[in-house]
């Protein structure tokens, strides 16, 4: 009786924990913490993987591998080095980029951002939609060359050498476009360090 109540209390409580506390719980084999992290970031993770890989099965594999890496290496996560959400999405991105580089043929496809996979059926979550608008607006305000470098690198999975070749530019130019674009995005998106990923529920 008491155990059941406690178990319920624990599950209910997870929703109020910071991402970083959930990672720490995952490090202690608390599966419900992993589930809560998936519920918070699984959708963004899948959207990112799908954008890079343009293939549902490959995107699912990338997300699964990334979350299992969270599970396996949660004890090594260092909260003072960055947010848990950054860590998770970085893992997802790395998996997706590794996979897309293995699947060279897919990248011969068009990389026009307008050519993104269509959202099937369901409308996007409202909060995610707002976040997406914000990032897209920031990207649109970048100089074309910087936006192109960021989009091809991050969403296209191209390496800097591939970009230099594809765009017919010296490597140094590509590097400074990526650095300039990312730094400008950081300004445009505000000081991410001050953003709180955890607010008390009222």
């Amino acid at each position: 009786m008491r155990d059941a109540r406690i178990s319920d209390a624990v599950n209910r409580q997870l929703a109020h924990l910071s991402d970083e506390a959930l990672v720490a719980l995952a490090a202690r084999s608390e599966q419900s913490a992993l589930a809560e992290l998936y519920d918070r970031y699984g959708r963004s993770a899948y959207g990112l993987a799908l954008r890079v890989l343009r293939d549902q099965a490959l995107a699912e594999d990338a997300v699964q591998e990334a979350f299992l890496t969270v599970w396996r290496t949660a004890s090594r996560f260092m909260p003072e080095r960055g947010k848990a959400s950054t860590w998770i999405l970085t893992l997802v991105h790395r998996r997706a980029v590794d996979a897309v580089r293995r699947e060279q043929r897919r990248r011969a496809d068009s990389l026009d951002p307008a050519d993104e996979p269509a959202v099937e059926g369901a409308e996007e979550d409202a909060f995610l939609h707002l976040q997406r608008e914000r990032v897209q607006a920031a990207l649109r305000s970048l100089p074309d060359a910087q936006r192109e470098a960021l989009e091809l690198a991050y969403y296209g999975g191209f390496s800097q050498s591939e970009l230099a070749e594809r765009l017919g530019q010296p490597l140094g130019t590509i590097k400074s476009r990526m650095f300039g674009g990312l730094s400008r995005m950081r300004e445009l998106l505000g000081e991410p360090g001050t953003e709180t990923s955890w607010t008390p529920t009222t």
Partner: protein
Amino acid sequence: MDPHDLTAAYALDALDPEEAAAYERHLSQCEECREQLAELNETAAALAFGAVAPAPPERLRASILDAAAAERSNVVPLLRRRWVARGLAVAAAAAACIVVGLAVSLSQSSKTQFTSMSVSRDASGVTIMHVAGLPAAPAGKTYEAWVIPPGGAPRPAALFPGGVSMTSRLPGTVPQGAIVAVTVERAGGSNKPTTTPILSTPT
């Protein structure tokens, strides 16, 4: 090639494997790059939210959790075994209490440490809060506990210095659905919270 130039490309996963390995070797010796990378990583990860995010198939969640369970089974969850046990020890002292709220958080200290707060209520409506693992409040500061009734303003409930486990009876009645939260306030306490809660739990 100057490795300092590679931070943005690394954050975007735009290095070839050999370049990435070389950059990582450099990173272990360059605090400046580590700091810059932490910033750029965060911005790069924000780009993830720029992609359309359709709901993943339902099976993906189950597949991840099944695989996780197969790798490392959760026989006796520590959360329940230890932290709740602490709350229960307090609850037992108050006889027939029920743990109605529990919060766990990471402290900001360099050494990773858990902070837990449990809130218990007994049949007569007495509410007890137990906080463990909270480092001592900074000089000139105190921890302050608040009871926030549904739709109401936060009510000061307790002041405590941290550093040691603390058990406190919360004054008055704590209505069903109230939130119990802890903030850092100036010494002597405040009438209303002036900082973001470091711990918070519904009851």
